[in-house]
Structure formats: C-alpha cells, structure tokens
C-alpha cells in the first residue's frame, strides 16, 4: 500500500523499525499527487520539500505536512490564494513553522484556500476551486479546503489550517477528516497572515484524532511574538487519548436542532448521541439562547477587523503593484485588480460598519451581543463538560451553487461561528455519511484551554466507530 495513505503514527512505527526511509514517504506522496491532484487541485503551490537535518527523537521527525497558504514559510510562496500577494516569499517563518521544523517535520506544499480565508467553499481562490475528494462536483468546504481535501485524498499525511469562523472544522466535516480549532491564545498567530485578529487560530487537520493530538503537542504554547498567545502550561495531549467517557456530561444545545438541518445529518448526529450514551456519557439538553445572532455578529466583527488588517496590501511592500501616476490612484487600482470579489465585499462591509455614523449602530452593538454569546457558553459549561453539535447543517454542496448568494453561504456557518466569538476550542470528527456518500461531521466544544476533554471524547467515539477508516474513491 502507498505510504501516503498512512497516519503519522503508522509512519512513525515503520520509520522507527527502519522498514522505510523518509524519502520513501515523499516518493509515495509525489506519485499520489501526480495521480490525484489534477482532479482535486488541493495545492496552491508545490515546491521541493526540504528535510530537516537535525537529529530529533520527535514523533514528527521526517513526517511531511502540508501548510495552508496563509501561513508564512520562509522563502516559499505564501500568497493567501490572492493575486495581490503574487510572488510573495516571506523573509521569516511563522512560529508554528519554526516549531514544526525544530521537531523535524518536512514542510510539504502550500494548500489552496478561499482568498485571505474569506469563504466557506474554497471557490474564492485566485487559483480556482478545490474539488471534494468524495464527489468532485462538490466543494471541499472552506476556507481551509485545500488542507482538508489533501488529507482526505491522501495527497498529504496531515496539514495545518486556520479557523476564523469554522474554516478548519467545516472543511474537515465536508471531507471526512479530523479538524481542531484550538482555544484562542493556545497557538501563536505570529506569521499567520491576519484576517480577523480576535478570532483567528491555527490548528491541525489529520486522518485520526491521535494524529491531531500529536500535532497540537508541537504547535501549542506561549510565544512572546504574539501578545495574544497565553502563557499557560501545555499538557501532553496524547495522554487524553483514552477510550473511556463514563460519567462525562455532554450538552446538546436545543437551538441547534431547529429547521434547516439536512435529514441525513440529523440522523447521523442522533445516532452518535445514542452511541456516546451507550459508552457511558450523560446526555443533557442545554440552551445557547443567542445562537440566532451569531452570524450577524460575526459578519460585523470579522469584516471590521479584516478591513483594518488588509489595509497593508497597497502595492508598496510586497506583491502586486498596478502602475498609476498618483499614490491614491495606485492604491485603488492595485486593490481593485489584486483582490477578488469576496475580499472586496468584506473589506467594504467592514469599512462601512466602522465608518462615521455607523460605528455604534453596527460595530459596538455587535461587540455587546458577542458578550451575550460568550456568556451563554460560560453558563452552559456549568452544566456539562462538553457540547455536541453537527459541524454543519448540511453536507458538501455543489461547486457554484451558493456563489451568487453570499448571505446563504454565510448562514451555513451557523454552528461553527459562535465558537470563535467565544474563543473556546472545538473539534470536528467524521460521524457518518449521507445517502449519496458525502461525509458528515460532528462537532465537540469545550471550555477554554480544555482541548483534553475534546480529545478524550473524540478518541472514544473514533475507537468505537469506523467512519474514519473509509476512503474516497477518486
């Protein structure tokens, strides 16, 4: 069997027993990419991988990892899938890349995404859409669609993505892989090209829950270069991989089980709840009262922050420059040609929400409702250890289906967005398939800095099901 199909743990075992050489993994990955990549287009840039020459006893030594195209890798194209960053090669590594390199991992390829992470389908990429490995006419989700699709199609062993409103979890669910959004502040954002700084977090996309914990051990931790990373001890997440959830209280938010949920998704989630109950979990209904306002709050806060963060792309320091005679005309022309449609839409919406006369009506009001959403979770976690929801109300949709209707696209993020607004961690794991054989994802949420709870429940569920073992036929 191709080594590309294996997990980190399986490859580690073979490497440690000297059954394989590191170059064998790269060779198998390359042949899998030659075969599959033309159909799914998960990569934005594929440049020659560099092995770390340092000797390390780390679990990640010689393991290749794909990186979302908004995370800076020194000297390698990093473009956020945007025309405005054409040709950009960062002069430094993001902190997560530095940590991966020190652990001996091999940085292998930059994955496709919605431009600047603006989107839920990876259709808003300057390089064109990525296709879902389970059905090539469907989207892989987004914005980390390339990371999810490559892990699912075995053109990557594992990957990093970023999550601002569901951008790791939603594509993980659409592609049938495991995706974690860590607690805000758990992983350094230094070198992640910013979208919305109060919401963004980097996290792993993997084939199994165990692989996810292994990556979290490496990328987590305080970083003086990111003043919003938090200086608390990082536990060994692999110690949470316990097949036992007896007595764990799992909350089911009643507001999430209303109209609009796909019937196959609903069935898979209800069956998963039954299974967890059988395995000893205590299931109880909880309430997250302000859920219906999450999408509105998000599209004000996230676009406002984005409009400010993306001011730096002005044709001066890097990337595209459209030649004009005056400075202002140069800015306008560069940003007109450099940004795609969704990026312009969001920058303009954010600027509007912050502009004179609208600041209080929109931005300030949204920040106050954000407090209410955050409080809902604080209250819920007084009654339960974790919360279970579908990751998305429906499975992967067709390419092109929602492009002309941005609002419908935004509304599909309803189950993932609140997590970022509250700063808490959440994981999406495979929990079934639709009648048409599209993957369904289940989301688990916990209190801040309690990723251990997520790993424990997710691992137990995974050990007692076989969904994660199924592979797409491409």
């Amino acid at each position, binding site marked *: 069997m191709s080594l590309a199909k294996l997990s980190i743990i399986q490859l580690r075992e073979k490497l440690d027993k000297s059954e394989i050489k590191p170059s064998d993994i790269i060779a198998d990955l390359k042949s899998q990419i030659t075969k599959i990549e033309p159909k799914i287009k998960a990569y934005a840039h594929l440049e020659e991988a560099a092995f770390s020459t340092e000797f390390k006893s780390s679990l990640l030594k010689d393991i290749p990892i794909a990186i979302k195209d908004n995370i800076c890798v020194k000297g390698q194209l990093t473009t956020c899938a945007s025309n405005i960053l054409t040709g950009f090669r960062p002069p430094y590594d993001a902190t997560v890349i530095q940590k991966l390199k020190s652990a001996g991992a091999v940085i292998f390829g930059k994955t496709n995404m919605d431009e600047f992470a603006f989107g839920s389908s990876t259709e808003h990429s300057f390089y064109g859409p990525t296709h879902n490995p389970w059905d090539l006419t469907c989207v892989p989700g987004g914005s980390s669609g390339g990371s999810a699709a490559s892990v699912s199609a075995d053109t990557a062993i594992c990957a990093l993505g970023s999550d601002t409103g569901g951008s790791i979890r939603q594509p993980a669910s659409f592609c049938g892989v495991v995706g974690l959004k860590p607690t*805000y502040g758990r992983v350094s954002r230094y070198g992640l090209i910013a979208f919305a700084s109060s919401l963004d977090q980097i996290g792993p996309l993997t084939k199994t829950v165990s692989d996810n914990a292994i990556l979290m051990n490496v990328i987590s931790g305080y970083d003086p270069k990111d003043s919003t990373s938090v200086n608390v001890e990082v536990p060994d997440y692999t110690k949470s991989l316990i097949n036992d959830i007896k007595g764990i209280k799992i909350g089911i938010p009643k507001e999430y089980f209303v109209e609009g949920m796909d019937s196959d998704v609903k069935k898979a989630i209800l069956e998963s709840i039954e299974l967890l109950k059988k395995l000893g979990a205590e299931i109880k209904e909880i309430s997250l009262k302000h859920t219906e306002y999450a999408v*509105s709050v998000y599209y004000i806060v996230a676009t406002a922050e984005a409009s400010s963060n993306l001011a730096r792309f002005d044709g001066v320091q890097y990337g595209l420059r459209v030649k004009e005679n005056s400075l202002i005309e*140069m800015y306008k*022309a560069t940003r*007109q040609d450099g940004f795609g449609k969704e990026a312009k839409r969001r920058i303009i919406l954010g600027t509007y929400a912050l502009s004179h006369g609208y600041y209080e009506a929109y931005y300030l009001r949204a920040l*106050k409702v954000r407090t209410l959403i955050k409080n809902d979770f604080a209250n819920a976690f007084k009654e339960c250890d974790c919360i279970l929801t579908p990751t998305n109300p429906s499975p992967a949709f067709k390419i092109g289906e929602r492009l002309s209707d941005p609002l419908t696209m935004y509304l599909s993020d309803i189950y993932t967005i609140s997590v970022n607004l509250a700063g808490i961690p959440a994981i999406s794991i495979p929990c079934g398939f639709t009648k048409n054989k599209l993957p369904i994802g289940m989301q688990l949420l916990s209190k801040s800095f309690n990723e251990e709870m997520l790993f424990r429940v997710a691992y137990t569920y995974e050990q007692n099901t076989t969904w994660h073992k199924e592979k797409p036929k491409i």
Partner: protein
Amino acid sequence: MAISKKDLIHVAYLCRIGLDEAELDSLTKELEKIIEYIDQLKKVDIKNTSPTSHVLPLKNVYREDKTIPSLDPKEVLQNAPFKKDNFFKVPKVIE
C-alpha cells in the same frame, strides 16, 4: 438601514478600492441584503451589557525595552515591487 450607491462610493474611497460601474451595482444589491439581515441585532437587549472586543482578559502587554536584531533590509525589500537603495518606492506624493 439601506445602503445607497453614493454611500458605497464613499466607503470604497475610504478603503481605497477602485470599483467599476458593474461592481458598484452588484455590490450595492448584495450589501443591502446582508445589512438587512444584520439589522436583526437591533432586536437584542444590550442595555446593561459591556462590549467584548477580545476574549482574553488582556490589557497592555509589555516587553523589555531591549534591542534585538531585526531582519536584514535586503530580505525585507526582496518582495517590494519597486525599490531604491534601502527604500520602498511609491509615486510622487508632493508636487
């Protein structure tokens, strides 16, 4: 609150994005729909609620005032579309 084409031209100028007529028309319609949806927030009682701009209990984060090496100007300028000596070059600002 409705957004007019005139508002949009102003906002696009504020964020320095050039738009052609077709973009202006479609954006006005799309934003109108999005803003109409977002206006649901007006229903929420926020009288005694303080804003959350950030989920962490952070105020100011200080570091020691110590000099550390920075990036080499050559590396910093390698991505600049136009440069001269150790500077980024832009169109003339003052006549």
